[in-house]
């Protein structure tokens, strides 16, 4: 790791101001992703602002029947919360499908949303990567790409968003709440939170420098049955090849998002409207315009089969 100075933030606004005022400063909370990347010198912050002890670790009911999840609530706490287990099961299911008990105990809600990608070339510091070194090129295009995105990519990056929790939050229409360095707050719909790579793959979210995620809000429970099915190379502790998060209603309608197929949780509302016509129709529309590589083209039929499994599970 490169040397860095360290401070504990006194308030969310002070933390935001502290990071904004120092080039090279970053927030740290759980640290499970950031420290890993710092050891590889992929992340090289010169100053860390520790937000772990801020009062952002509560889960509260909202006046409209929803839930407000503090940014520092750990993955374990969120997956175990009685209301989450009862009313937002897709979130519990998605969280425990990822990482390990040890990591989920440290990883936070905001940190999970902000985790970096897992493209093998992002980690291979000797090779070009437009996320790690903007303008250096994309080694994954024409390289080993089996795990990478099939849609939403650009000629500059084909990394997928590897998260599980974010896919569940996407089907629930979650909102990400933040505070900016000037103290103002805003709410960002989860669908706008993860950016497609386009011309600037290094910009992964719409946050301004120093902007701190303070909470994630869920609207009132959608009812129905909740599903998260993750296909991966081993039964536990592996990133998804394809995942499906779904909330299905008795009348055959529902919401569906796909994970690990795109640079963001992939939910196409026009596609999920076709659920009554079956998984093939949904996937055909959701993946229209996909540009898979020969190595990862299998993800599209795999997405259809995974959705078929989830739909069968919903009927059972």
């Amino acid at each position, binding site marked *: *790791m490169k*040397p*860095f*100075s*360290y401070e504990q933030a006194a308030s969310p606004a002070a933390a935001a101001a502290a990071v904004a005022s120092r080039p090279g400063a970053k927030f*740290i909370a759980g*640290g*499970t992703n950031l*420290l*890993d990347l710092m*050891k590889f*010198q992929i992340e090289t912050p010169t100053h*860390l602002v*520790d937000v*772990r002890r801020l009062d952002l670790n509560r889960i509260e009911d909202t006046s409209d029947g929803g839930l407000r999840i503090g940014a520092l609530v750990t993955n*374990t706490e969120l*997956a*175990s919360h*009685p209301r989450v*287990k*009862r009313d937002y*099961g897709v979130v*519990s*299911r998605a969280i*425990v*499908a990822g*990482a*390990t*008990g*040890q*990591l989920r*105990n*440290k990883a936070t809600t905001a940190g999970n949303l902000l985790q970096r990608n897992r493209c093998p070339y992002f980690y291979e510091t000797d090779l070009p990567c437009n996320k790690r070194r903007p303008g250096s090129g994309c080694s994954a295009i024409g390289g080993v790409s089996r795990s990478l995105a099939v849609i939403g990519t650009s000629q500059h990056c084909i990394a997928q968003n590897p998260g599980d929790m974010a896919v569940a939050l996407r089907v629930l229409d979650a909102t990400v709440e933040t505070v900016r360095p000037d103290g103002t707050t805003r709410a960002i719909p989860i669908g706008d939170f993860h950016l497609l790579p386009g011309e600037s793959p290094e910009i992964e979210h719409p946050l301004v420098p120093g902007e701190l995620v303070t909470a994630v809000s869920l609207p009132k429970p959608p009812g129905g049955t909740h599903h998260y099915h993750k296909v991966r190379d081993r*039964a*536990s*502790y592996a990133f998804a090849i394809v995942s499906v998060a779904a909330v299905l209603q008795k009348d055959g309608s529902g919401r569906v998002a796909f994970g690990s197929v795109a640079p963001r949780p992939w939910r196409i509302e026009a596609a999920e409207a076709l659920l009554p016509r079956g998984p093939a129709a949904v996937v055909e529309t959701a993946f229209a315009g996909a540009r898979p590589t020969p190595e990862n083209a299998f993800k599209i039929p795999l997405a259809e089969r995974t959705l078929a499994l989830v739909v069968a599970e919903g009927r059972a």
Partner: protein
Amino acid sequence: MDETNAFEVNRRKLMAGSAALATLNLPSGVEAQALDEEAPRVVVTFTINGHLQRLQLDTRVTLLDALREHLHLTGTKKGCDHGHCGACTVLANGIRINACLSLAVMHDSDEITTIEGLGRPGALHPMQAAFIEYDAFQCGYCTPGQICSAVALVDEVKRGVPSHATGDLTAPMTLSNVELRERMSGNICRCGAYSNIADAVSKVAGEML
């Protein structure tokens, strides 16, 4: 620091001699970090196995390196140093974490329990005793992490923490073999002692749940 003496092993003294020769071959990053006296330092005060400890550390020192290199509690093992293997699992305020992916400075005022703090020779923690009874290890390198993880997971089941193997999220939880294996997936054993580890954990969990 008398608590570490009972665990002082001869192999470590032997290794210390070998390490002096090996420093010539250190990767440049490691050498630079060890010699970088300009790097920011901070004071950390935490309770380790019931003893208050105060250390002045480079901000980069992980909880794992603080335990092993600064407090000489070498029961906690460094395997991958990236959160993949679980050999460094310790309890922070009773919660299992990877000590390698945690900065020591972020544990100020925390209570840390390592394998040395769970039990002592002659007064073993039930999980330690069960690992011996069921022959739940071969080389033993992953064992401290396995035991700390197993102790914590029994508590997690009691607290209603679900796993990927959980059926009904809202039903009372049990610890089947499938559940246990899923919950222990963050602890790798390259000798492959999993069957005996599962037996040892099942026995203790059966008594504690």
